[in-house]
Each structure stands twice: as structure tokens, then as C-alpha cells.
């Protein structure tokens, strides 16, 4: 899509101005139905440059620090916060000539997987506005799926790019941890947080990350990826590549509650596997310790809650954010935080504080670190043999906004494996179940992003959902 738009601009079939205006108009029009944006930048304009992204509109998840543009993280604790500096990824995308037309809603500060926890209200799925988008990069996913922008930046701590991408029928790519600088991204869980992209083709994912990746002097966990050129690596040659899937996740007999949607999702997954094989990719079934799989969610919850409670201690309303009421600094902070955070976040803070307590660290924090280590070791072993892990991106398509989501928790947790190990991981659309899109996810070994993207690129061609957007929401 990006290349096509770039060509059109170059050939003067369309001007950047028109593209941007069209995106802004669409965004404004979409708000009532999708509620994807926190801020729409009505006077966004192209800054002349010569790049694939030049003049093309983009939407940014609202947990990126954007200079002179409201950046709330979809939290009331930051509802009036206008940063004076750009996140590194923003700096880079601006330098590439991208035109930011809006900031998108997220589950408050990245916590939550539904799109229902933003301070501006629930974000709705363009395929069916009674359905959730998944989260936390909810607004970014909705904006791309609705065809408002060709791509949007997101962040992924457990599955926050890859789940909404699946639910919205688009591509969601989380690069290797540290490939894109985290500087200026509101921290959720620092050891897992990753900047990535939501778009409609693997090629676009490669183009965008090529632009924003790189070692950053402001992020010690970033690394030099000069020798990686994602776009140039997409040759579609995947013969004899090896993928594995986890038996315990993909076997319907392993589920107690066999819902109609789960059955169909797994059936679709099997079809995808067949298509892989048609491409010459070898796919094997691998059994994974069920105990480890069951430990993923509690481990994720422990690590993220602990890191989040500490990371978000800076949100006091004293130096930035709305001032709380009170006679002492403690009262002011308490008021700010009590009124500013949703109940979900407060619950996570309580969990975080609990597991960080000296007497509980051994039992929870260190135990989680151990499990994380065990899982990563096992995965690394498998990655010695295989190019990647292929799984259904979620067990079911997007659920109803008013529905019960407890059953959902199961497969969706598995994507957190990608964050535990810092692995590159990409979701691409793979079909439909009950008229809602579903996706598959491929995860590979650290810094092997080019290989993973190339496999996804070949599979995307075979599956035929490239450049797919939702129709009818208008």
C-alpha cells in the first residue's frame, strides 16, 4: 500500500495534501462509530522529503511522546499532557516525511487487551462495531482496518499489536526487543515493551520498521541493526523453511470448552498450515510442557504488574498531568492517582506492589523470572531447529463489546512468549470466522526479523488478504 501511494504521489496522480486531508476527514467521520482517536490533527501537513513514507498519513498510538501534541496514554492522569519532545520513533518517522494525522486510543497506558479501557471510551471494530478491537493498540488497529491511514504505530508488551491486528484483519508486527528505541514511549513493562507497526501488508511493515529502527543513544536496550534491511529481504523464497506449532494449543481435544468459534478458528489454522506446506515450508507439531504453557499468564501478570507499578510511579500530577487536590503533596498525589487511574490499573498496581514486597519476591517475582527463563530456553532450543513458531493469533475472532471474555484468556496469552524472549513476531490476516477476521502469528528467533517477515510475506501472498480493509462501517 505504501509503495503504491508513494508512486501515486510521485506520478502526481494524487498529492500528499489530498491524501492527508482525506485521512483527516475520514478520521473525523469515523469518531462517532469507531472512537479510535484521542486527538485528530486537523492542520497536519507534509514536510517535503524524499522517502517511501514521504507525505503519507500515519496515526500514532497515544502512548508515544509527540512534541507539541497532546499525549495522554489514554489515561486521565495525563489528560492535559503536551510533551516538549518527540519519542525517537516519532523523530525518525517525521524525518522520513510521514504526516501524523492523529493519536489513537489504547487500553489505558497499554494495560488491557480489549480496547475498552481507554479514558475516551471503548474503541469499536470496523468489521462490526458491536465487536471489540482487542488491545491495547486498539485505535491504531481500528484506524488502519477502517482504511483511514495505511499504517499506524503501536506498542506491544504481551500481544498489544498482534491481537488487535488479528481481530481487525490486518498485519501487526512486533520487531525484536530493542530494535526500535523505546525512548519517549510511556513505559508499561520495560523488559517487554516493544515498538511496532500495524498496517495492511508485510511489505508495509518492513518499510516502516526499516525507517524507525536503530541504536539510540537514549535507550540502552536498543541495538544496532544497520546490517538488517527488512524490505530488501522480502524475496518470497521460503522453500525448506521450517515452522512448528504447539500441539497443546492447536489440538481441539485439549480444550474443555469447545466453542463453535474455537473449532472454526482451529480448522482455519489447519488450512493455513496446508498452505504453508504448499509453499514448500516444512511444518511440524511440537509438544510443549503444559505446565509451562499454563504458567505464561501468571508469569506475564506478575512481571508486568511489578514493572508497571514502579514505572508509573512518576504519574503524580506534580510535574506534569493535572494537579490533584489536597493540602499536602501526599494528598495531592493520592487524589490525582485515585481519580486518574481506572480500576483495572489500580488492581495491577496492588498485584505489583504485593509481588515486589520483600517477603513475596522469592515466591512470585523470582519464580516468574525463572519460568520466563525456562520458556525462553525451550524456545531458543526449538529455534535452533526451526525458523519459527506458527500459531493462531487468537483462539476466536473478536468478541462482543458487551460479551463475556473470560474464556478468551487462553490462547491470547501465548503471544506473550514473543515478549518473554524479545522475539520478532508478526500477525497476518488468515481468513474469517463468522464474518469476523482472524489471523495467524509467526514468531522467530531474536534478530531474525528478516527471515520471519519473509515467511509471512510468502504466506500473505498465498492467503490473499493483502491490503485488506473493513468495509461497511461507514
Amino acid at each position, binding site marked *: 500500500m505504501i509503495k503504491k501511494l508513494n508512486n501515486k504521489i510521485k506520478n502526481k496522480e494524487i498529492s500528499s495534501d489530498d491524501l492527508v486531508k482525506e485521512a483527516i476527514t475520514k478520521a473525523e467521520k469515523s469518531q462517532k462509530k469507531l472512537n479510535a482517536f484521542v486527538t485528530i490533527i486537523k492542520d497536519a501537513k507534509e514536510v517535503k522529503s524524499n522517502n517511501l513514507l514521504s507525505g503519507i498519513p500515519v496515526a500514532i498510538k497515544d502512548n508515544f511522546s509527540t512534541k507539541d501534541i497532546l499525549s495522554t496514554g489514554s489515561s486521565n492522569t495525563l489528560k492535559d499532557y503536551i510533551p516538549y519532545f518527540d519519542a525517537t520513533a516519532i523523530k525518525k518517522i517525521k524525518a522520513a516525511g510521514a504526516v501524523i494525522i492523529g493519536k489513537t486510543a489504547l487500553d489505558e497506558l497499554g494495560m488491557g487487551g480489549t480496547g475498552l479501557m481507554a479514558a475516551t471510551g471503548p474503541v469499536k471494530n470496523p468489521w462490526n462495531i458491536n465487536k471489540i478491537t482487542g488491545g491495547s493498540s486498539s485505535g491504531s488497529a481500528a484506524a488502519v482496518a477502517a482504511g483511514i491511514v495505511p499504517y499506524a504505530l503501536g506498542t506491544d508488551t504481551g500481544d498489544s499489536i498482534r491481537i488487535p491486528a488479528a481481530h481487525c484483519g490486518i498485519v501487526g508486527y512486533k520487531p525484536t526487543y530493542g530494535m526500535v528505541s523505546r525512548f519517549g514511549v510511556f513505559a508499561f513493562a520495560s523488559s517487554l515493551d516493544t515498538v511496532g507497526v500495524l498496517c495492511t501488508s508485510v511489505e508495509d511493515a518492513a518499510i516502516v520498521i526499516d525507517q524507525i529502527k536503530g541504536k539510540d543513544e537514549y535507550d540502552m536496550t536498543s541495538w544496532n541493526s544497520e546490517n538488517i534491511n527488512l524490505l530488501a529481504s522480502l524475496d518470497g523464497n521460503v522453500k525448506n523453511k521450517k515452522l512448528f506449532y504447539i500441539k497443546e494449543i492447536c489440538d481441539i481435544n485439549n480444550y474443555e470448552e469447545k466453542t463453535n468459534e474455537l473449532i472454526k478458528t482451529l480448522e482455519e489454522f489447519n488450512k493455513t498450515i496446508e498452505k504453508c506446506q504448499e509453499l514448500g515450508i516444512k511444518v511440524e507439531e511440537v509438544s510443549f510442557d503444559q505446565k509451562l504453557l499454563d504458567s505464561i499468564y501468571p508469569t506475564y501478570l506478575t512481571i508486568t504488574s511489578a514493572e508497571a507499578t514502579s514505572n508509573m510511579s512518576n504519574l503524580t500530577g*506534580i*510535574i506534569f498531568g493535572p494537579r490533584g487536590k489536597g493540602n499536602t503533596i501526599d494528598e495531592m498525589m493520592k487524589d490525582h492517582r485515585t481519580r486518574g487511574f481506572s480500576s483495572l490499573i489500580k488492581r495491577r498496581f496492588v498485584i505489583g506492589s504485593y509481588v515486589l514486597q520483600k517477603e513475596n519476591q522469592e515466591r512470585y517475582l523470582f519464580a516468574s523470572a525463572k519460568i520466563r527463563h525456562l520458556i525462553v530456553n525451550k524456545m531458543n532450543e526449538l529455534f535452533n531447529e526451526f525458523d519459527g513458531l506458527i500459531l493462531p493469533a487468537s483462539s476466536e475472532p473478536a468478541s462482543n463489546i458487551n460479551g463475556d471474555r473470560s474464556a478468551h484468556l487462553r490462547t491470547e496469552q501465548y503471544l506473550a512468549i514473543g515478549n518473554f524472549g524479545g522475539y520478532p513476531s508478526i500477525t497476518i490476516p488468515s481468513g474469517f470466522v463468522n464474518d469476523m477476521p482472524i489471523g495467524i502469528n509467526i514468531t522467530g528467533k531474536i534478530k531474525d526479523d528478516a527471515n520471519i517477515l519473509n515467511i509471512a510475506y510468502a504466506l500473505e501472498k498465498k492467503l490473499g488478504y493483502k491490503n485488506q480493509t473493513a468495509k461497511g462501517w461507514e
Partner: protein
Amino acid sequence: MALKVVIGLEMHCELNTKTKVFSKSLNNYNDIPNSLVTAIDLAFPGTLPIVNKEAVKKAIKMALCLNCKIPEELIFDRKNYYYPDVPKNYQITQNTKPIGLNGKINVEVNNELVPITIHDIHLEEDTASLDHYFDYSLIDYNRSGVPLLEIVTDPCIYSPEAAVAFLEHLRNIYKYTDCSEADTKKGQIRCDVNVSLKEENATELGTKVEVKNVNSFSNVYAAILYEIKRQTELIEAGKNNEIIQETRRWDEESGATIRMREKVESIDYKYYVDPNIPKIKIEKEWIEEIKSEIPLLPLERKTKYIEDYNLSSYDAGVLVKTKEVSDYFEECLELGMNPKEASNWITSQIMGYINKYDIEITDIFLTPKRLLKIINFLNNNTISSKQAKELFFLVLEEKEEPEVLIKKYGIEQIVDNEELLAIIQNIVDNNQSQIEEYKAGKTKVFDYFIGMIMKETKGKANPVKVKEILLSKLK
């Protein structure tokens, strides 16, 4: 029942790096409040710490000076607590693997070497400074993020004198190694003092009382004395149970320690490894490189001065008391001065002068090169020793080169035999009666002649030569 005091110290000292420990803000003292601040120092959302290599290097240098074990990798932890002096509401410090462990150093106390063992050394960020007023407080974030090194001793110090000697010794090492300005007046050093009493032969330590944030060495001394007195009185009155594990602070005005909080309700800081800072391997080669940069430390220099230059232990002690003086002395030696002579000038004249005016040796106009000029004039008889002292003060006061001042004030000595002969002859000729007296055995008259000659030459005549010539005339 004899009671013994057991002291443990925690000495915090700001390192003199160019920039702060986790941000690129300048690390300067005494600038306009809140002017040395970046987004990182104020914990704006999305900011991340960047470890300052220079700070780590200086921390390792200090750890090496204190013979600590250096870990193989660098790890930082978060200490979580809510207080306005830390905008992140956690302080980045070292808990899992401090930069130095299990050190040991000898300190001179009353001419005796006392071993002091170091529990650990850790690098952390300083907090913002708060000024509390009646109904408001002011906060200056300039200090927020300044590298702070905390040196923690074991409870192994047994007198307030030893405690202060240790602190002074450490301050010296900071200066010798150029790791810190180590100026207590600028608040660069702050100490926590743990004091407990036990019976002389008891194996277990008594209940520990911590006096926090003592900002000068004299206050450390006073606080320890106060705690010894307070605790002794309680024990002697049979009120041992009133000595509780608690945190107190030193109140300078009342000269007493005051209770802040009981340890029972102590805070859980929820330490955990900071995920924003990857583990960094500390290469052996780097440690060796840092080691090679450590200059001779005070005690080593003192030994060298005594053994190689035959200086007295006292003089050597005065010379190494501060790095500046010791460097001055060594520069004199490099210029070829006689060690004994240089030491005499420094320990008597120069130290007297700088102590009188409370200035540093680096502040005076009389550099070792200028001192050498004075000494050379003296040694080649251009000036007398009395004139040398005069010239010494003139150089200090008028800030002019010695040779310029000699001309300006005509301080030259008359050493020319002919000239002196003529002057003396003239005096002898005009004082015949005194000559008779001298010859009659009234030897006191000799001093009368010396006086006359000095008066005539305005004190410029070389006394040795005058004596020589006069004796020959009076024969």
C-alpha cells in the same frame, strides 16, 4: 561494667563527573536552581536512564582504592518510594551487585594504623534538594541525578576519633584520585552514622541507632559522642530497653540527636533490577586500566617521603594531608629542589600563610617555580635568609616575579669584597676609640661594629662576609 562503642558508617559522596549519572544534564554546583535539568531528571513519561561511563569508572576507581572486589557485571536496581525529591518515585541504586564488595583499608588514628573493613560500595543517583519553610518547601532538581557513591563500612570502628579519621582519609582519597571535590561545605558529603554500645567482652552487638544525614565531620564526631553519652546513661540507669532500633537525626542547634522514626515500621523499598539498564560486563582490561590510573595515595606518599627523602613523620604527615599540598611538594622535587629544603618551606612558611588566610595552596601566586627562584637567590648569596623570607611575603602579597621585586625593593645583598672592604674601612677609621676598647678585651664592641655596618648598608651586607672582613680589620 565497661561499655564499648561500635560504629558503622555510610558515607555518601557526589562524584565530579561532567554530566549526571543517568542523563546528559551538567553536574555542576551552585548554578541557578532548576537550570541543570532535562526530561530524564524530571521523569517525564517515556524517558530512560543512560548510564554515565565516567561515573562508573570513578566508582570502580574508589572501589579499587578500598581494595574491594569488583563484580563481573554492572547491575542497577530500583529503590521504590514516594517522595518529591525523586520525580520517578524510585531511585536507581545498586542492591543486587554493588560496584565494590568486601574492601579493607588502613587508617591512621593517633599514629597507629587501624584496619577498617568495607561492607560495600554502591553507585546511585542523588536526589533533588529540598528547602523547607514554614508552610511551603522549595525544590531544586539540579542535584537530582548527580552521581552519588555510598561507601558502607562494617560495624568495625571503635571510637569517634577513628570514625572521623576514616572519613578524612576517604575524603583525601576522593581528592587524590580526582573522583570528587569532596567538599562538605557544598553538601557533597553526607554521612549516616550507626552507633551501638556493648559490654567490653560481649560477642553480640548492642541495639543499633542510626543517625541520618550528618553533613560535616565535626558533626559526625559530636553525634557519636552524644549517642555514647545518651545510651550510656540509659544503660547505667537500667533502662536498656529504651535503646531501640531507630533512625535519628543530628540537630546542630541543640547539639543533640532527635528521633525521626522507629525501625519497626521501616519502609520496604521493594528493590528490583532496573529493566531499562541491560547488564553490562565489566571487562578485566578496563579494571586494570583504571587501576593504572590511580596515583600514589596519602599513606603511600607519606611512607615514600619518610623513606626516600628522610623527612620526619610529622612533616611527611603535613605534606600529604591534602592532595594539593602533596602535589605542590612533588612539583618542587621535579624542579630539582632539595626535598628537605622544599619541605621546610612548605610546612613552615607556606602552610602558615595559607592556614592564616584560610586559602588553598593552589590559590597562591607563589608557585613551586617562583619558590625555586627565591631558593636559588638565597643559595647563590644574592639575598640573605632574612631577605628570602621578606621576598617570600612580597611575592605572595604583590603577585610579582621574585626578580622583579628584588629590583623594585633593592633587596640585593652586598657580597662584593671591595665594596664591603671600603665601607668597613670607613667605619673602622671613624671609630678609633671603640677599636681601642675592643683590643682591650671588650668583645661586645664587635656587635656594635656589625650594627654600624648593617645600618650603613641598610641590612644588605652579607653577614658572613662582614664578619670575616671585620675580624681581619680588628686584628
